[in-house]
């Protein structure tokens, strides 16, 4: 379960019912190329169409930054890769819940052969529809349920956090760095721990302070949290919220911070050390290619990172000294080559308990269950999660 996933879930749940209804009303179906007349449901064997139809279901509006924007960039990458062999379409602003099921069923009934649902809350609706359309391939982002015709995929954002940590460790003057966290779930804890480990890899004296805001979305609160970290002595900040509030607070205080999810360098030219971005394109291209080639397999869980080109740290600030930049680039290169793994033993948590033995590299199962701070992070993980 990832922070994005949870975020979407809670963000939508938090809206008033009528606001949700308004969003529902605004849920607009958009097809890039004009769609042919709806075909019979795939249960009836349809003749192979000219172009493979692929569809995306988005939880938010595309906009020009953030989660849904990143997925749409991935869809465009598929178009660029396959040209007229593939016809893509998307539905944006689909609320998580009963309406999602209708949208996914519609898309399947219209002859789409592969459908991507890009938010955690689409998991159950997709599981249901997948059972009704055995000939259609279903792909769900950030979830955990698979079936013969349904796969899940995700990204290793903590790899970005690790590289950012290397930069933070090199840039901090107070030896204190800060993290504005949303909710203490494994995904976010992985990011905090990777950030801290990255910093410690270049500067063993670094301490990491964490402030939880217990919301996915509240920019003024995000700035408050960032400000309290700065007041507590932190001079490089990272966050896992979508807005640029933390970055702007850092700019105001003459400190450093990072962009998250998308390139935020324009928002705070002085404070911005680098942006942690995600690319869904490589996975989408692979999945569509598998369908075209007839090699698509169900029951798969795919989690890609820097090695496969899905996470990347971009736009490093010119002001970063050469030596620090070099170390960050080395880390990034190690992640890309697969020779570096942020969570490698010996690794102990901040109570001294050993979590990974010397030489042991974290398995997916371990990563799924992170519920502690590594050594160097101050405080205690809030209970209840």
């Amino acid at each position: 379960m990832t922070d994005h996933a949870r975020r979407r879930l809670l963000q939508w749940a938090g809206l008033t019912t009528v606001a949700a209804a308004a969003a529902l009303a605004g849920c607009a179906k958009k097809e890039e190329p004009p769609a042919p007349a709806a075909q019979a449901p795939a249960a009836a064997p349809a003749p192979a169409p000219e172009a493979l139809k692929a569809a995306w279901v988005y939880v938010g509006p595309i906009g020009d930054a953030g989660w849904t924007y990143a997925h749409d960039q991935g869809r465009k990458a598929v178009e660029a890769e396959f040209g007229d062999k593939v016809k893509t379409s998307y539905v944006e602003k689909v609320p998580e819940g009963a309406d999602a099921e209708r949208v996914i069923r519609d898309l399947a009934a219209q002859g789409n052969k592969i459908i991507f649902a890009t938010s955690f809350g689409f998991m159950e609706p997709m599981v249901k529809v997948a059972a009704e359309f055995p000939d259609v391939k279903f792909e769900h982002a950030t979830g955990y349920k698979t079936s013969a015709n349904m796969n899940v995929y995700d990204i290793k954002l903590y790899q970005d956090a690790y590289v950012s940590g290397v930069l933070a460790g090199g840039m901090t003057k107070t030896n204190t760095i800060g993290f504005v966290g949303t909710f203490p779930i494994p995904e976010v804890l992985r990011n905090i721990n990777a950030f801290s480990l990255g910093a410690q890899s270049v500067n063993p004296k670094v301490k990491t302070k964490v402030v939880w805001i217990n919301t996915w979305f509240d920019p003024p609160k995000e700035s408050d949290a960032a400000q309290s970290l700065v007041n507590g002595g932190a001079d490089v900040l990272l966050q896992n919220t979508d807005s640029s509030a933390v970055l702007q607070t850092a700019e105001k205080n003459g400190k450093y911070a990072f962009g998250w999810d998308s390139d935020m360098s324009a928002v705070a030219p002085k404070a911005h050390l680098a942006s942690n971005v995600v690319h869904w394109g490589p996975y989408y291209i692979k999945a569509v290619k598998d369908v075209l080639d007839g090699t698509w397999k169900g029951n798969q869980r795919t989690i890609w990172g820097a090695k496969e080109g899905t996470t990347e740290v971009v736009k490093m600030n010119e002001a970063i000294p050469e030596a620090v930049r070099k170390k960050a680039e080395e880390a990034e290169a190690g992640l890309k080559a697969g020779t570096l793994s942020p969570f490698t033993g010996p690794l102990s948590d901040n109570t001294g308990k050993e979590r990974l033995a010397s030489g042991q590299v974290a398995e997916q199962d371990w990563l799924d269950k992170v519920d502690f701070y590594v050594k160097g992070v101050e405080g205690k993980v809030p209970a209840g999660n």
Partner: protein
Amino acid sequence: MHELALLVAATLVAGTPLALAGLGLLVNERAGVLNLGAEGLMLVAAIGGFAVAHATGSDTLAFAAAAAAAAALAAGFGLLVIWLNTNQYATGLALTLFGYGFSAFVGVAYVGRKLAERAPFEVPGLAHIPFLGTALFRQHPMVYVTMGLALALAWFLFRSRAGLVLRAVGENPESAHALGYDVRWLRLAAVAFGGAMCGLAGAFLSVVYAPLWVEGLVAGRGWIALALTPFATWRPPRVLLGAYLFGGVTMLQFQLQGTALQISTELLAMLPYLATIAVLALISRNAAFIRINMPASLGRPFHPGS
């Protein structure tokens, strides 16, 4: 000591938008109109203020534009509930939903934009006093304006004749009407003023506090402001104190996380609301007290000539 000063400073900033909106709603409610549209007004004002600040670089113009926009919108609400006697609760909720959608629609172009940098504000002569300077005298002027407004409104409502008339309209519109006061226009003026105050609060969030625009920026502060008026038993200085209390608790949550002190932040976050319920329960127990404090015709429509 320095950290405490910073905490006080942050509390003043966090409380200011709540106080501005709360004071505006207090005037509304003193005139007998309940405006559940505060959140929507703040959102529209937030994007309006941000757009003006982005275009002109002037905070003053941004606040003026935001106040004007929100006052106009509130006046529209006023026409509906005062002249057409639509249900105040439903109309207010509709206003909130409208504000949510409208601000998101208008604001699309402003997501990710930034405002020109401004020098930090300092009160001349006082900003460099140890402790007090950091805690109190390095704020945006709007923080001080808000304090002044709270005192001015307290004077207006309880020491001036016009304030007495306004309260009469909220207590017993029939009597005010019989005395020759135009209840509907007075209520409209109060609603427009309340809107303007919500506008200042919205602009404070987007222009000074965040400072940025994203959809849903206000994030429920309009509702907190609505909870402030009963918490403050409809008294302006208490609204101000309540706003600082609510803001202070928010800041304290973050501050405590940095220390070894283990207090559940969820518990802290809950406290202001518990306090509101406790105050409501206390004043509601005492019939005389509720009569003294709560505007008697709050939320009730008025039909002249009936």
